[in-house]
């Protein structure tokens, strides 16, 4: 029996996709709605896809049950699942659907009309890999192909009449031996690295960090769709910058001042030592509340960016999260100095509602 249901299942998945698309804004704003499951899947709660009927309201109807308890006792735990039991309403289910990150990225791309990213320098970035492709009569012993060797010897023995079925001993000669051979296959490698930088000075609150966390999830998802080997690095800074792991990145709070240039310097070091632009697609993302220590430092930032960083990266993105303490000056300065450069994306994120638009700004350039 072939599984005819696959077709219906695919239709159902289409509808689910549609639902996710419809509600994408909501999902984008609320990171918690996505339960991450395993490496490649997220679980998304989709409002029930239900066919409406004329039916009784559950609360108005009530029902009959069985068991212990006095009148007035709560009926717990109330299981909503009725599965067709007499009269018991099914209630409003939330359907949990597994969606692969790739699929999610596609949905995001379609809904935000994001252009596909053309990996930079596709031709240049080439790695070679060994691939075992054939069999040859010579080679190192470690690659000897036992089965083929045996077969070869068997064939020869039968052909020469030295095979005795009563005593089937096969003795391979030197010429019978067979070895695996390989070829060098060039694979266009598309490596990418995202360097997240965040201001953790006192003025960045939990809400601001939450916004950054959600943004980074979607950025990762989108970029991972385009680059098989995506690396992420995290840099936090106040007056000095240091590299941290993901956990620390989102949970550190310092109280010092802010010197953005420190982060850019560190990022630049990383790029220069680990991610030569000939073989890497580099994405620095920086989030802060727009406060910088001094105009001098801002000037230094602009200089670093325009002369060193921008030529080496696919896209530099700066997201300014609004905070009650920040002045919000930095984005204006950047806009003035480098806003016209094509691999720069600048976005102001006022609150969670703005995440959606800012993702579009960041990823809409197709770089």
């Amino acid at each position: 029996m072939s599984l005819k249901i696959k077709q219906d299942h695919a239709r159902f998945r289409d509808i689910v996709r549609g639902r996710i698309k419809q509600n994408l804004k909501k999902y984008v704003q609320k990171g918690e709605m996505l339960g991450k499951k395993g490496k490649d899947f997220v679980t998304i709660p989709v409002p029930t896809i239900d066919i409406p009927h004329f039916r009784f309201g559950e609360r108005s109807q009530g029902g009959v049950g069985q068991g212990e308890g006095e009148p007035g006792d709560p009926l717990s735990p109330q299981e909503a699942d009725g599965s067709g039991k007499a009269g018991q309403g099914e209630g409003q289910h939330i359907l949990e659907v597994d969606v692969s990150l790739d699929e999610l990225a596609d949905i995001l791309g379609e809904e935000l009309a994001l252009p596909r990213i053309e990996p930079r320098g596709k031709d240049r970035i080439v790695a070679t890999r060994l691939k075992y492709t054939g069999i040859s009569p010579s080679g190192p012993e470690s690659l000897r192909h036992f089965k083929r060797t045996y077969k070869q010897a068997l064939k020869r023995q039968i052909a020469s009449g030295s095979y005795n079925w009563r005593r089937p001993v096969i003795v391979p000669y030197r010429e019978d031996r067979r070895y695996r051979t390989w070829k060098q296959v060039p694979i266009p490698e598309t490596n990418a690295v995202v360097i997240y930088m965040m201001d953790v000075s006192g003025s960045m609150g939990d809400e601001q960090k939450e916004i950054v966390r959600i943004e980074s999830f979607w950025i990762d998802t989108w970029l991972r769709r385009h680059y098989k080997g995506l690396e992420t690095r995290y840099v936090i800074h106040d007056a000095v910058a240091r590299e941290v792991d993901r956990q620390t990145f989102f949970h550190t709070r310092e109280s010092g001042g802010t010197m953005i240039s420190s982060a850019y310097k560190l990022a630049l070091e990383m790029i220069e030592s680990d991610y030569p632009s000939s073989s890497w697609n580099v994405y620095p993302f920086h989030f802060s509340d727009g406060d910088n220590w001094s105009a001098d430092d801002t000037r230094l930032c602009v200089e670093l960016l325009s002369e060193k960083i921008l030529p080496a990266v696919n896209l530099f993105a700066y997201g300014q999260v609004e905070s009650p303490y920040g002045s919000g000056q930095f984005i204006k300065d950047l806009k003035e100095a480098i806003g016209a450069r094509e691999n720069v994306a600048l976005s102001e994120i006022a609150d969670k509602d703005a995440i959606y638009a800012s993702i579009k700004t960041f990823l809409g350039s197709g770089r």
Partner: protein
Amino acid sequence: MDPKHTQLPARLHDIRKRIEGHARAYGLDFFDTVFEVLKFDEINMVAAYGGFPNRYPHWRFGMEYERLSKGYEYGLSKIYEMVINNDPSYAYLLESNADVDQKLVMAHVFGHVDFFKNNFMFRHTNRKMMDQMANHATRVRRYQDKLGVEMVEDFIDRCLSLENLIDYQAPYVKRRADRSARDEEPERKMAVGFKTEREYMREYINPAAFLEAQQKRLDAEAAKKKKLPERPERDVLLFLLENAPLERWEHDVLSIVREEAYYLAPQGQTKIMNEGWATYWHSKIMTEKALDASEIIDYADHHSGTLATSPGQLNPYKLGVELWRDVEDRWNKGRFGKEYDECDSFVQRRNWDKKLGLGRQKIFEVRKHYNDVTFIDEFLTLEFAVDQKLFTFGYDEKHQRWEIRDREFRKVKEKLLQMLTNFGQPVIAVEDGNHENRGELLLAHRHEGVDLKLDYARDTLRNLHSLWRRPVNLVTRVEGRGMLFHFDGKEHSERRADL
């Protein structure tokens, strides 16, 4: 050996022969039953299709499949029994189940098939439904090929939204006169007054005012006859088929949905009896005949799983099997009739035993002539309700939670019957197909104490509109007040109104 059965592995075939022998020996009378052994993804598929290997394509089967496969992956559910009301009947066994489970399933299945074959509710059902469903599938597929998947599926969604608007009693009564009698357009009846031989007396016996009144009454009667429908039509789907401006393929799809709804309805209307009956017999066959000593623990485990109860739900297996046993016991001991009913000594009643031994005979009779409503109405006794700890529950607005309401026998039974009446669906009928003389459709909900779920009702009206293609109306009661819900194709509106 019947060639149809050769597909069972020899081991299962032997088990089947044994169980079938026991079942027949107990007097069960069932159609020939074909068991198919399926792998878990196949059985999930068949289950998603409601037991039929061939259904028309629709996403909701895919949704069901996803739910079932997940349940299996997480080890939450292993479908134990699935059987189709068909001749021959088809039932499915999960390949990976242990022998003791297969025995249990087979015994259970024979119980169901006996019920399908003998219960009066199933008499009108198509016993070649397996083929019919496959035909439906072919027809719908053909429309999809011609018109596009989305368009057809969309229309099916709408039809399904109305699928409970059928007349659940219709197969068992004759609701309306045959077609030919209805079609003639009657002439206008003229008032003639009382007969009189004497011409000169006519004006005295039949004064003008009297004749006029009589004429008015006759005209009103004629108008009523002309009204569409003459009487409120409970089979809303039929009314739509006959009167809505549907395209031919739409007409066909709607009639498919209607036919399947009528086929499936009796299974919903006898859920408690049917599951109870099958459970009664599997437990009887297993414990008295078929179990090996080594299988007892597994059997007990799975059997008790089937009968588990949780406070918020009635388990039809549990309620059903207990009721069947109670009926058998009462008729064995003679605990029925005038003498028993009038006995008011508690001790005497408890120990009542006339050793009549009529139990077996009685339950076979009951399985033939009752459905859930009449079964509960007649056999659910006070003692039973107390023993089974039945109660009613309701939603408490103050505490924002569901609460146990009452353990009073009369109320429990009333609620239970109310939940089962009309298949637990609201009674809704077409009142007028030319409402306000504007070709609008008017449905009326016969309110019996429970309000409709209003957001669903509005969505359903929208779907109804897409079939009727003129504004649609529904009269119901909300919190004790008559309300008319109106959808004109663009907007919903509502106003106070009584029918």
